[in-house]
């Protein structure tokens, strides 16, 4: 095992670059994931299997519909999320995996043609995440449920991590040079610090302000406020990203954010709309994880480019000084969370509209979906 020595700074003897090691670990992780899915798939009932087949067809049909409608979204995981909710995380993972393999076999527009199979691990993890969130009740919670506290704490943690990232970016910078050992270590350390800030915020707020009991009238208020703040933040970030960073752009973004916040409050106050917030937290975090897993695939297999209109974004991020991996990840961060949030919302609407005779056929239909 002599070759397995991590490069020290200025090394002259043969050694392994951390990037190469990371790819090796990633390949092993994919093999373990596929093996685990294969093992779990033996226990699936006939209903689950025919649901998976239909869900694969749904993924590919709607995923190719976005080409017809010229939408800058993928929408190729609605079936995966549906299976995750109705039949559990492993069934969702199998759906995602097989969707991308089948898409490789068929001349259906959308996807990446016969090379779509490279994204199969991403789709599998989306299925796992959907099953995980369905188990936590995202498709079931009402806006007066005490478990909402956990979701509010998580959303606050994400916000804290995002603010920490911005702070680091504007002070010491998040640059990353693949040839320089020191900058790689600094990058990883900064990443760990940011993740710790997020985790600490989640832990503290869960035990203090978001420690809620059932029937607490504050839950609804918090939900409405959280909906408004996240909608405003999203609009602000989008406008800032798309417009050139000028003072006028800042002003337009601020005005847009305030308008959206007011609209979101009036929308969330009506009936039970605010209960969608946990669904969005689930979709958003799934999108974050999907972007994180897709980025090394885009960087390593596709030369850091996806072949869609989003490549303009990749070029933009590179002029801002990001690496091949960094620009692919940043592009994923701008489209994946939005895409998965929309997919989760669509699945939520479909689940609530589903006839009870169909819903009760599936192993978790009763557990994860509310009336």
């Amino acid at each position, binding site marked *: 095992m002599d070759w397995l020595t991590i490069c020290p700074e200025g090394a002259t003897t043969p050694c392994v670059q951390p990037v190469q090691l990371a790819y090796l670990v990633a390949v092993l992780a994919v093999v373990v994931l596929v093996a685990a899915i294969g093992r779990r*798939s033996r226990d699936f009932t006939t209903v689950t299997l025919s649901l998976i087949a239909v869900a694969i067809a*749904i993924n590919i049909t709607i995923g*190719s519909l976005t080409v017809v409608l010229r939408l800058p979204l993928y929408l190729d995981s609605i079936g995966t999320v549906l299976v995750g909710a109705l039949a559990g995380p492993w069934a969702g993972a*199998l759906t995602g995996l*097989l969707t991308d393999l089948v898409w490789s076999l068929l001349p259906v527009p959308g996807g990446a043609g*016969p090379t779509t199979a490279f994204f199969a691990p991403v789709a599998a993890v989306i299925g796992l995440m959907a099953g995980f969130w369905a188990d936590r009740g995202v498709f079931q919670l009402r806006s007066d449920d005490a478990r909402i506290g956990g979701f509010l704490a998580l959303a606050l943690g994400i916000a804290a991590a995002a603010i920490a990232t911005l702070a680091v970016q504007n002070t010491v910078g998040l640059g990353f040079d693949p040839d320089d050992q020191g900058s790689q270590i600094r990058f990883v350390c900064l990443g760990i610090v940011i993740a710790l800030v997020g985790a600490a915020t989640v832990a503290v707020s869960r035990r203090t302000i978001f420690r809620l009991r059932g029937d607490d009238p504050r839950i609804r208020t918090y939900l409405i406020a959280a909906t408004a703040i996240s909608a405003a933040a999203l609009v602000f970030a989008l406008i800032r990203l798309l417009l050139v960073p000028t003072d006028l752009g800042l002003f337009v973004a601020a005005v847009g954010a305030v308008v959206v916040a007011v609209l979101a409050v009036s929308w969330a106050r009506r009936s039970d709309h605010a209960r969608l917030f946990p669904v969005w937290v689930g979709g958003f975090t799934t999108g974050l994880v999907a972007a994180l897993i897709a980025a090394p695939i885009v960087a390593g297999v*596709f*030369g850091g480019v996806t072949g869609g209109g989003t490549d303009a974004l990749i070029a933009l991020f590179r002029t801002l000084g990001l690496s091949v991996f960094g620009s692919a990840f940043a592009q994923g961060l701008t489209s994946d969370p939005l895409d998965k949030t929309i997919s989760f919302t*669509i699945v939520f609407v479909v689940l609530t509209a589903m*006839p009870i005779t169909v819903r009760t056929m599936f192993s978790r239909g009763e557990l994860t979906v509310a009336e």
Partner: protein
Amino acid sequence: MRGIATDVATGYYIAGSSRLHRRNPLTKLLGLLFVLVAAFLLPALSLAVLAALLAGVAISAGLAGALLGSLRIPSVLVVSIVVVNTLFFPGGRDVMLEVGPLSITQQGLTFGLVSAGRLLVVFVASVLFLFTTLADDLLETLVARGVSHRIAFVVQSAVQLIPRMRHRAAGILAAQQARGLSVSGSLVRRLRVLVPLVGPVLLASLVDVRERTLALEARGFGARPGRTAYRVVPDSGLDRVLRVTLIVAILAVIVSAVAGLGR
């Protein structure tokens, strides 16, 4: 049953009886795996050898024309890989040419060409595999080799469902357009179109799951004993020799890549 949806259900398959067509699907799958591993693990120069090899295989199978036609599928992606990397490469230092505010760097051009070449080689290999292999034959072979027939059922029924569901989606789209739904216009407008389209497609297909499950159970899908195959895929001595050779070649590529990791 297969007559209903042959256009998409047979995929990229082009009927023929060349040597490549007659190989066992598993042999061709191993060949594809070899090209994949070699393209990404061997030095960039090996791409030229692989490309020549694939071109020879395509010509001998009489698929050169179809192959050239299929190259338009990844054309946008390949152009994008080369252009974006040539102009915006993070580690680009040696400027070859300045065009206004943009500069073409040598590192970027090399990285873009190598990435595009790798992807093209893998794409050509997968298309040759898909041109000469029916999904039915592939699944039948895999089930005979121990892959669960349940997984094979899921893949096969998804493959047959897709054209029908796309047909249904097109029908719903036409019906909604006849009621005045406009599918052009601004982004927000096109996003709103999704609601009256996706809803009916999803709910109708979920109700189908019930029917399909009952039909499957009534035909003993979950029954325990082993099954015999209706389709028998031919497997020759040549195939066995090729498979052993390919497995050895794949292992050799991996070993040489791991041994050369540090350099």
